[in-house]
């Protein structure tokens, strides 16, 4: 019974993903929300029983004018370290660099420092996570502090434990607010994703994310749909 519901669910999930991918190509991007493809490559390594180092490469590619230079909006690199305080708590920090419109003349940059703490609850192989993050965004033309809170839940789709070659579902919601005087703003990001656990500490995820941006800007809320594909390697 459960597997029948899961099969039905999988079919609906694929329909949603295909719709999200195809919609912008049908011309719905002429006005309204922005559509982004966000491929990522993530690498992490446990350097000891408590310490983990990580690096991530991320690209933001607009679906609109997909082959034009301006469609490549950002290239981002991120380097992080995490320390395991208890079996459930981690603290860490990192550095992040964003290169905006890298193919255009007069590109912009952003340096970002981040500090974060995370708590994971385990229910068998189902995991509920809380992540609290502080960021200092040093951009070409401005500075911004930001606080982010993300709630995440992932669980296996084939049985109670996740084995190599099996799929899992991941749901996340993240709220964030910028709190310096000139740029106070808020944003919400909700996402639904499907992952495959590979052998050898690797996994692949496809996430459909919807962002509600500029909530306090006074110029109206903007919307962004993002299709994220991430390949994870952990050692």
């Amino acid at each position: 019974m459960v597997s029948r519901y899961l099969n039905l669910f999988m079919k609906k999930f694929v329909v949603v993903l295909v719709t999200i991918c195809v919609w912008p190509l049908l011309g719905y991007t002429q006005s309204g929300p922005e559509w982004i493809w966000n491929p990522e490559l993530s690498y992490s390594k446990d350097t000891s029983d408590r310490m983990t180092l990580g690096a991530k490469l991320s690209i933001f590619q607009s679906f609109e004018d997909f082959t034009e230079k301006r469609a490549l909006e950002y290239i981002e690199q991120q380097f992080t370290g995490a320390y395991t305080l208890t079996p459930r708590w981690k603290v860490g920090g990192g550095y992040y660099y964003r290169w905006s419109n890298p193919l255009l003349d007069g590109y912009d940059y952003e340096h970002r420092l981040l500090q974060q703490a995370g708590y994971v609850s385990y229910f068998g192989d189902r995991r509920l996570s809380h992540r609290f993050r502080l960021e200092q965004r040093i951009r070409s033309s401005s500075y911004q502090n930001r606080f982010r809170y993300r709630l995440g839940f992932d669980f296996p789709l084939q049985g109670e434990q996740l084995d190599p070659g099996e799929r899992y579902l991941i749901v996340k919601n993240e709220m964030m607010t910028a709190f310096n005087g000139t740029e106070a703003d808020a944003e919400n990001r909700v996402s639904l994703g499907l992952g495959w656990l590979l052998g050898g500490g690797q996994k692949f995820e496809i996430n459909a994310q919807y962002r509600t941006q500029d909530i306090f800007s006074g110029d109206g809320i903007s919307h962004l749909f993002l299709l994220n594909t991430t390949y994870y390697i952990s050692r």
Partner: protein
Amino acid sequence: MKIKVFFLNIVIITLSAPIVVSQAVKNEIEDSIKRGEMPEAAIETLDEFWSNLTDIRYYFQTDGESESYEAKLEWQGNSYSIEFDETGRVLNVEQLINWNQVSSEASKSIDEYLQKEFRRVNIIRLQRQYIADDDDDSDDEDFIDDILEDDEEDFKIRYEFEVEGRSGKQIGAFELLFDHSGDLIQRRKIERRSVDNIW
């Protein structure tokens, strides 16, 4: 032109990942299955005791060499897990219990072990394992009957703990197996999945 090639490469890499998945070597598999996929003898044994239960969950397990089947069910407020071999013979029965359901003899010894080996420890899962005595080994229904009637003379008991804590330089989750008197049989660290996608 270069940008087209660049993105074509990314598309190929990301779309090829699910293909790689299907080729991944599975050393240990636990998969949810339908009732009809269970061995016939296993279903007969389950029906003998729980024919009225409709929410029994069934699983297939393999480590690449041996295969087994498992049925998980709730009965009279207790969670049971019954493992069968390929022919449907009962291998063992596990029951989810609380710390106060561990025998006083075993709990004292186990508590001493946890205090000695762990700086901070949290029990996250505790199961009582029932292993059939040799005399009863050939009759699965007698074995389960003995468990349900609490006839402790006809089976051996073990306790399987899943704990979180710090032990020496190790931190994380551990699986500990104790015999009926609380002596440690086996200890292993549980390798949890990386949290890089939720951290």
